[in-house]
């Protein structure tokens, strides 16, 4: 039985192959092996949401998925979504409304917000809060984050 395995996956559109330890979780893999440090390690037990990334189109906790489980998958991180401008509107609204302070939660927050935008573009303020309920922010009080997402979804200002 192997403690390290060869994996091939597509990260932000680029195919990558690595040999990884079975125990390495996906966010450590992205950060340590690929240098994609935008996804953050906050709690490593699935509560804070700072490591939220997208695997095959669905957001996941990067600390609750092993890198080997991403073999053959398409993984998107904040860096990829920034470069493709997929989260450009959200980033603009977050910037204009100061929906971040230290910025440590922000990549995960944007991944969750983008997921909501794709899945439920008509979400109410309450539904926005519910969709972000697994993403911890100690700095802002959440209001500006909710405001920014509401603006992007509904064009409110």
């Amino acid at each position, binding site marked *: 039985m192997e403690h390290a395995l060869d994996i091939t996956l597509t990260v932000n559109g680029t195919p990558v192959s690595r040999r990884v330890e079975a125990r390495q979780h996906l966010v450590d893999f992205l950060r340590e092996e690929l240098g994609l440090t935008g996804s*953050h390690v906050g709690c490593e037990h699935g509560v804070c949401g700072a490591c939220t990334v997208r695997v095959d189109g669905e957001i996941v906790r990067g600390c609750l998925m092993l890198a080997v489980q991403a073999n053959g998958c398409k993984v998107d991180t904040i860096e990829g979504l*920034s470069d493709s401008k997929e989260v450009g509107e959200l980033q603009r609204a977050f910037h204009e409304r*100061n929906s971040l*302070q230290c*910025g440590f939660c922000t990549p995960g927050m944007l991944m969750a917000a983008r997921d909501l935008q794709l899945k439920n573009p008509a979400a109410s303020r309450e539904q926005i809060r519910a969709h972000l309920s697994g993403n911890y922010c100690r700095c802002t*009080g959440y*209001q500006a984050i909710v405001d920014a997402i509401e603006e992007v979804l509904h064009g409110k200002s």
Partner: protein
Amino acid sequence: MGKAELPLHAPGTRVDKGYIGQSVPRPNAKRLLQGRGAFVDDLRFPRLAHVAFFRSPHAHARIKRLDFGNALKSAGVIDVFDGRAVAEYCTPWVGVLAHLKGIKSPPQHAIAIERACWQGEAVAAVVAESRTQAEDAVDLIDADWEELPAVLDMDEALSGRCVIHPELGDNICFKREHDTGGVDEAFAKADLVVEETYRFGRHTGVCLEGRSILADYNAAEHTLTVHHSTQAPHMMQDVFSRHLGIPEANVRVIARDVGGSFGIKVHVYPDEMATAALSVMLRRPVKFVADRLESFLTDIHAREHKVTIRLACSKDGEILAFDLDDLSAIGPYSVYPRTSGIEGNQVVNLTGGPYKHQKYRAKLNVVFTNKNVTCQYRAVGHPIAVALTEGIVDLAAQNLKMDPAEFRRRNLIPDDAYPYTFPSGVKFEKLSHHQCLDQLLGLMNYASLRKEQADLRGRNIFRGIGLAAMIEVTNPSPAFYGVGGARISAQDGATLRLEPTGMVTVMCSVTEQGQGTEGIFAQIAASAVGVSMDKVRVITGDTGVTPYGGGTWASRGAGIGGEAVLLAGRALLSNILDVASKVLNLEKETLDIENNAIVDKLTQEKKMPLEELGRITYFRPDILPLDFQAELTVTRHYTPREYAFTFTNGIQASLVEVDTDTGFVKLLKHWCVEDSGTVINPMLVDEQLRGGVAEGIGAALYEECLYSPEGQLLNGNMADYVVPMSGEIPDIVCAHIETPTRQSQLGAKGVGEAGTAGAPGAVMNAINDALAPLGARVTAMPFTPERILRALGRIA
């Protein structure tokens, strides 16, 4: 954009203050939005080694034996060290300050030697090629312990039956008594005396980014570069230098992006000192990032207090006196260098703060226990002082059957009474309690909320409205730490440089933790010089680059750092105009800078773009007069000295609904009116307030570090230690009164801690207001459903 005139609050000042007062977005937020920040853990270094610590599983135990044999053989391990080995390179410290008379604490080592005094204290360090390998080896360390009696309860500690540090004689770290005299007489003649005991749960900061340090020792140069998630780079430079025996000039501390701090990252942590020592010992870069479990065990905790307070008042509702007895437990060491006596000291200084009574007595005991250390966390002492004061004030109003807003109106210090000396001895320059109260009551539509509350009670819906007025320490002078002997700077500096391209570079000793410091410095610099914000670049958090200064704590960044930037900006403007005057052969007094160009002051006619002036200054100075040397880099410093602290004031209100069947509290809305002087960026200030309120709500309803009778932290993870998240925090309405401080040109006071200071008291009062018709009260934070049900008599 026009330019900021000086002082901003002078009569007749141009209304147009440039960017000051504008809600402009922070330029430095863009990299964070793309995940392209530079947090310590994002840095990549060759030969980087990783440390993991073997920590005490016991609250109090003697280390009989540590066996590293198996750990040393584990894959990837570079070396394993105990406390004695690290002590060869790092001297111990003692967390006391001379002006906290009688405070005592034993020497503390980077790695504990012989004895561990709390569960989680590091007793050995494993350095390996990866963090994973270091953790593997930690599991292989074999230790023999002799468990010692653990002192966990505050009263037990005070009794001194079992003394944690026998050489200190007792468990009392610090005590203070304050008495204006006449307190007993005031109570004797009072129509009403109310008394209550409040308890405040121990809680912690839970920064999303764990404490992080990457120390890089260069043996050839005997230099140490420390990449550190810290609020106070210069303080840490001094500490590393002093305790590692490296000349201060050879130590550079760099704090780029910091993932939240809230006071957690302004202290000296043994494991961080050990990491720096290990880099020296191993002559290679070494990194330590506290994981979440370590964070709960070792990030400072705060606010474990039990306080009995009495209030005396007349039947007309005039407060005559407060009498206070505070007992607080701080863990086994007073934290270096700020000490763990400050929080209790603040409670003594601030209790009763908004009110005009003249008689005040306070007693404080700060005791050692075998739990994790406590120290200054956002709003330090204020949440306790405010909740105590506002809780007992509400109880008095309730007894007098007086509306709590009216009761406050009768007792708040009048807005024209300043300068004012408060009975605790602290001095207020100028506060605006009555303006704030009026604004708050209007903003929340107090009268109609009271009516709605009464209507709903008829339908068994229990809503409560809670008010909390407060004062807050900001812009501290050297009286806070410097006078006590701590090498903590109360002054800050800013260097501004006009670049050849017409850009302005700002370098300031105040740091950025996300509150927007760099953004407001850009606003101030742009406004002072007369350039657009896109022409300003701000650098903070590097002792090798910025002027010397204190960093970020005690709500001082905007008021002190901002003033330094403003003064430097005006000096740079003057120096630029000197050059322009020579180049254009015009009187300096006729010139100004507007919109990145030299202009005629009167007509605003554009004379020369700044980039042309920059080109001439740097590349063709030969055309300038021989007796003239351009100086387009200027540095200015600022220290508040006239008052020990520049007090701010504010008032908050909370609207809650209590489910009396479940004990659950639903926060419906929260209001905050704050007077922080000149508001530089309302958008940033509002979100600072909201974030602060959210932390205060955490304290009021959710957060507490729970320990077992043996001293084991029971909820040291994010699933069990409950921080509020987006589903729990209500919308928060903010408004401002602006009473600028006359001590500075900018007039800004601090605002970073106000939300946290006032929210717990406001929420507590709202809950008790909701419970009042049922004859129930709660006084122990956090107000969990169980505590509310117990107060209601729904459970035994």
